[in-house]
């Protein structure tokens, strides 16, 4: 079972124009930097990107936006990005906004073989428009559908060559559920280790979900708002 690829360019080489991608991360925390850069280089376009945020103007998904590689974003919060706002207001970019928890659960559901589920979030708001409403235990809920992707592109801390992954601090966020929901899941990691080096009790995402893995390089790990006590 050879899941290890050389680098990001090899990992994403077969991603085609107009495919649907999930990209892990929250803000700029835990984003798959190497693969995003490789997608910029590969100039794949017409992409539908499922990602909680859209990066900033000159980093993360902002890089793909700037080159007009993204046709549609499915996200929960897209502030912090002027080019994004411009493309959305001008109609160049299609945007579907989801409540963050609904987005996370739709992704998990996609990976877990659950095509639809009811949640209370968004009832009575524009998020509920066109969706089935049903009352459970006296409270109205709306029916949400699962999300899947042609490729899920995620970032982990440690990974072994069988694809088992461990995340670090809040850099987990959407990476773990997205890792379950890709037809092909690509994981880039800070540290790639041999099979058997990770504690099997402490795997966040078991290797069955991961098809390709590589050791990333030159992580910038940019901080969006550096806030200190002083």
């Amino acid at each position, binding site marked *: 079972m050879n899941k290890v690829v050389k680098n990001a360019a090899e990992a994403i080489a077969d991603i085609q124009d107009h495919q649907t991608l999930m990209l892990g991360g*929250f803000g700029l925390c835990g984003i798959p930097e190497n693969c995003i850069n490789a997608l910029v280089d590969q100039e794949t376009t017409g992409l539908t990107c499922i990602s909680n945020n859209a990066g900033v103007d000159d980093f993360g998904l902002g890089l793909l936006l700037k080159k007009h590689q993204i046709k549609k974003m499915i996200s*929960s919060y897209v502030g912090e990005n002027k080019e994004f706002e411009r493309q959305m207001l001008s109609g160049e970019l299609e945007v579907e906004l989801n409540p963050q928890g609904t987005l996370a659960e739709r992704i998990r559901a996609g990976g877990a073989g659950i095509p639809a589920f009811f949640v209370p979030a968004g009832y009575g708001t524009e998020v509920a428009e066109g969706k089935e409403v049903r009352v459970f235990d006296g409270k109205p809920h709306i029916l949400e559908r699962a999300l899947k992707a042609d490729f899920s592109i995620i970032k982990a801390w440690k990974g072994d060559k069988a694809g088992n992954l461990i995340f670090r601090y809040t850099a987990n966020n959407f990476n773990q559920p997205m890792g379950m929901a890709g037809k092909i899941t690509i994981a880039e990691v800070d540290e790639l280790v041999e099979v058997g080096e990770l504690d099997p009790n402490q795997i966040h995402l078991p290797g069955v979900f991961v098809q390709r893995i590589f050791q990333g390089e030159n992580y910038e790990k940019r901080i969006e708002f550096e806030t200190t006590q002083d």
Partner: protein
Amino acid sequence: MALSKTEIAQRIAQELQDGYYVNLGIGIPTLVANYIPQGMDVVLQSENGLLGIGPFPKKGEADPDLINAGKQTVTYLPGSAFFDSSLSFAMIRGGHIDLTVLGAFEVSDKGDISSWKIPGKMVKGMGGAMDLVAAAKNIIVATTHVDRHGKSKLKTQCDLPLTGVNCVKKIVSDMAVIEVTKQGFKLMERAPGVSVEDIIANTDAPLIIEGDIPEMKL
């Protein structure tokens, strides 16, 4: 004198109870963390996957893998736990968070809240706010009583796109503490030096006023 933002946060901190798990939104709500009473055990949840938010890091010690939902660098406390976004919102949606404090553009006397979108002006997305207001057991809104143009944010109906309906339990503004009851807004406390008449004049909805309205104690 209307309360400052930190005073609003201070008043909200009085709502905390020992053992509470609390989610604090961005802005004034975040300041509540500074006024947790000494010796009270309150655990702060960050919806991006952290239970047990610590203080901001010391200069030079910020870790890019460790941020809060406002994308600020933070630290974690002993007894913390990290988890993915789906488990984080399972926690929220499942009612395991005792208290949510968040800001608002508008709140109606039915407990509806608008906080995420100003059509044509600001469309950043709802983030986790819709999940939080749909599921938290207890939701307190921290806000100024009127907006920059002097218009009341407390109304009979929200005009801006909704974040959630029938969910806000209490409002702590710079002028007053107001409970959202089945009968509508009920005035509970007034800011030091602010009169009941001032509050009535600045609220765009009927106020239930029973007996003497005490001044807040800070």
